[in-house]
């Protein structure tokens, strides 16, 4: 019993000493916020571009707002064009080549068939 009491006292002294050593060198109010800043932010994006389709055989010529990744085939189907095309029908509308980036940040393609 006595040995246990001595052990407890020694441990208590050790804990107090350790706490003092840990806390005394920097007496200041502890930092309120954590250091790490986890980030998780999301936002929807439009992802549309405008394509103007004109030419002979185009049933509905005009400007179309098409989602990113729309193929030439899908665009021509919208515009009602079924003739021969210099554009690859199964490929998406090429932004750098056929579409031009406007100052408002919108890509516009001008397609004449």
């Amino acid at each position, binding site marked *: 019993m006595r040995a246990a009491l001595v052990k407890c006292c020694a441990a208590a002294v050790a804990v107090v000493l*350790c706490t003092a050593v840990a806390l005394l060198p920097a007496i200041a109010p502890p930092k*309120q916020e954590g250091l790490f*800043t986890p*980030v998780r932010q999301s936002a929807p*994006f439009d992802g549309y571009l405008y394509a103007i389709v004109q030419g002979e055989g185009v049933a509905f010529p005009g400007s179309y707002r098409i989602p990113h990744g729309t193929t030439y085939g899908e665009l021509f189907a919208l515009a009602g064009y079924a003739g021969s095309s210099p554009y690859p029908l199964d490929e998406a509308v090429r932004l*750098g080549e056929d579409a031009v*980036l406007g100052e408002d*940040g919108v890509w516009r393609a001008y397609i004449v068939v």
Partner: protein
Amino acid sequence: MRKEGEHLLYRGKRAFNFRPLLFLACAFGLGIAAACAFGVHGLWLALALAAAAALLPLCFPSGRKKPAGVLLFALVLGVACAAGSLACGMRLSRFEAYPAPQGELTVVGTLEEVGRTEKTTSLTFGDLLFYTPEGEAVASAARIRVYAYGGADLPLGARIAFDAEVTAYDSLSYGRVNASYIIEDVRYTAFASRGDFRVLQEGAPGIFEAANAYLQDILFDNMEEENAALAFALLTGNSGWMDGDVLQNFRYGGIAHIFAVSGMNFAIVYAALIFVCKKLRLRPWLYVPLIAAVLILYAGVCGFAPSAVRALAMCLVLMLMEAGGFAYDRVTSVSAAFLAVLLIHPLYLFSVGFQLSVAAAAGIIVLAAPLSRLLCRIRFPKGASDALGVAVSAQAAAFPILIDCFGYTSGFGLVLNLVFVPLVSAAYGVLFVFALLACILPFAAGVLLFIPEYLLRVCIFPVLALDFRFWLIGGFTFGGCMLLWYLICLFLSGKVNLRPLPRALACLLLGGALVAGMCLTNLPVGYDAAFTLIADYGGQALLVRHEGGVSLVASGRPSSDFLEKLCLREGVDRFAEVIFLAPAYEVNAALPILLQYAEADVLYVAEEADFSPALFRTVEVRAEGGGFPFGGGEAAFLNEETLYWDFGGARVLISMGEAPERLPQCDLLIAQGESEALAACAPALEAYFGKAEGKPSVYASGDLQIGRKGGIITIKGGP
């Protein structure tokens, strides 16, 4: 077979041996981590830990525990956790409370330390006074580290004035805790050139600085410069005088740790001293303070570098435990040393050197013996089994830390450490004794230093002759999965006394969780496409992997270290497309640096830039005026430093400098820092490389992963 009365999961009376110091050290460390993660709210963890410690023994009833003892220990654990949390929070708050005058200032300070880097001399000043251009004086108890170009032969202890652009360090930058700056109280940094310094008042260096300078003079006066630099690095941890390429080769080989004055050095010095003391039959009350004094002097000569202080604390604790007859258990000894180091400064927990030391020591304690037994079972010689067991266990424990901190580790490192470290340890022992003698008998220094010089030359010959930049393991990070790695090591070691079947099941489950976690951490799971923003003080970059390969957009003037780390960490040795958003002369300088570490197929430059494509034969240079395919989408230069990129329908504006007057609207703005000009593009999301209050930034959260899926763009980062 299970005996009657035995537990279903574990053998014997308990699943693991109860070690109070191990639990206390862990609680203290947990408190520190909680303070860094949650600030003052981390204190709740102490309460939760105490409650868990009080309740957990009920799950493993052994019949011997007294409720009062359990409750008391739970309370002590809670106190330890709270103490760790408060100690860390208070140190962080004190560091951040130092005044932070920034900009072009006149600084007056006392020169306290001189070090070397590859291109500059680093000077650390204390007792600071800043004078602003308006004449206001601001005093600070923190220190400033000035990197001086062209060398600076200034007297230690002198009061010196200089003009410089001063920047304040934060507690955290680019997702990493600036542990070494906080520990060393270095709050400010600046760059200066030799002519900027004016000595106001001569002063005397301290005893440790004088001893360091004396040792340096003795070595450099009596050895060849190359060997003297190596000897000085081994003895004091200051490798600034070494050849940069040789040092880098040590790093590639995974053996650069020999130049950090750490456990190895102190262990050898301690072993030598204790051997002498025991031969002289000195009593512990005499040799303990004597050895402690010598070790403290040695740490002082090493400039009380963090690694030296850590090793000193560990060595002193182990010596005291051994002298006091408490060294009955190696786990307890290392726990005591761990606690002692964290009591000196809690931020040591985030010091890579400390993490590696503890991991290696713990790895050896936990894994070396079972590994060695396993090797003996397959008929390996006993000596070889022991050596291999120690080397493999230390490497296994250090592996995730090396990967996450440096981006790579050497696959050849195991062999090199196995061969090289014992050799260098022996050479270091000889060097220490002879250098000490040379300092005592300077007239005979030339003769005395001949033997260690010869030994060192033999030792480092393979490093000079071979290039270790091969078989580097990298290209992934562990992140939180590190914990799973260590749990697997623990279960495999047998320290948790599980029966074979539960152990195998636990390892399988943990292994599965590790694989899944690593995939989630390293692959863009859940996105149609993703890219990463990476930055540190050396540069900023955007890296995108797509079907056509890996594309890179980087800032101008990226440092060599930044690009090397980027390539190794991301496991990239070839870029399909590269863009440096910078003026032509900076692109011209940046590309050769990149080509040192990876190949590049195509370099895109803005058409308006005056860039000569004929300069690079191995890289196709394309000057683009309109849209061009890039990073799996389409891109267009708005000027030399601004790029507009269509990322699968999401409009991304990347600015690494001055933006053009008119900006198109965008969905995501990526820039170095906030500016009013950039706000014109009205982005839905913003991500910055540098500091940006309240906005996602690499500076605050570390690497940011940006992905898109189904018309939603997401920024993810942080722990």
